[in-house]
């Protein structure tokens, strides 16, 4: 089973990378751009058929390693 974790910085945490990319795009003339933030996308393949179990395994990974809960939040998706 394949799942994806999307990790983003919490709203009130500064995102220097997103800021620079945003500015660069605006300088390139893309005027409709209002806001841009960068996060991580992690694709995980598990040897597990049960969706619930897979989900909880990934949840566990997030809490133990993948996500820094102080500054980041995450979503898990089946893909």
């Amino acid at each position, binding site marked *: 089973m394949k799942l994806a974790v999307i990790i983003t910085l919490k709203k009130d*945490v*500064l995102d*220097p*990378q997103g*800021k*620079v990319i945003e500015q660069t795009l605006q300088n390139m003339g893309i005027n409709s751009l209002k806001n841009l933030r960068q996060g991580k996308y992690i694709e995980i393949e598990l040897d597990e058929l049960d969706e619930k179990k897979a989900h909880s395994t990934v949840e566990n990974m997030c809490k133990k*390693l993948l996500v*820094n809960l102080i500054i980041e939040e995450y979503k898990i998706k089946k893909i």
Partner: protein
Amino acid sequence: MNSTVIVFPGSNCDRDVATALTKLQFKNKMVWHKDNNLPKSDLIVIPGGFSYGDYLRSGAIAAKSNILKEVIRAANSGCLILGICNGFQILIETGLLQGALLRNRNLKFISKDVYLKVINNDNKFCKNYKKNNIINLNIAHNEGNYFTQKDHLKELEDNALIPFKYCDKEGSINDNNNPNGSINNIAGILNNKKNILGMMPHPERMIDSLISNTDGIGLFNSILN
């Protein structure tokens, strides 16, 4: 004094800091991250480098290692802990220090000598410096842009938990002499009990006037006394 330097896969300032410690008369031991036991130590140093390649988040993977559990235990019982550069990042990831170290605001690795002002010296790491001393240390990092929430920032400022801030040659502290975008120009912080220091600049690179200068010696000597 007994010191211990923890070595992770990818640490690369471990030898440098050990050289500095030995030169300044610490009895130093190196400990590999897979070890479960810490030798008796008065000071534990988590050195700079790229533990686990800085992959995922800098410091994140090292923070989960066996030996860190021992470091946390030692920290709680009052042992002095010094995290330099990647060591600072690791201390943040373990939760021993609060806040976050984000990408430098110009998104580039920055390596240069910077001026620091000693903001607070009433702690075991800085007492050999005078308050408002200006020292010159080298930085070399990708993620040194310190960030923390307002209330924690206030706590840091109010409780004298910020030993160093980036400044210019004359000591003025403003955005122009902030190399990486750190909030309030913070270059290092202490925990509440002031036995844990995390800092981005490398004091171990400044212990020999032939190589650079000797501004880093004050920090190690503070610990010795």
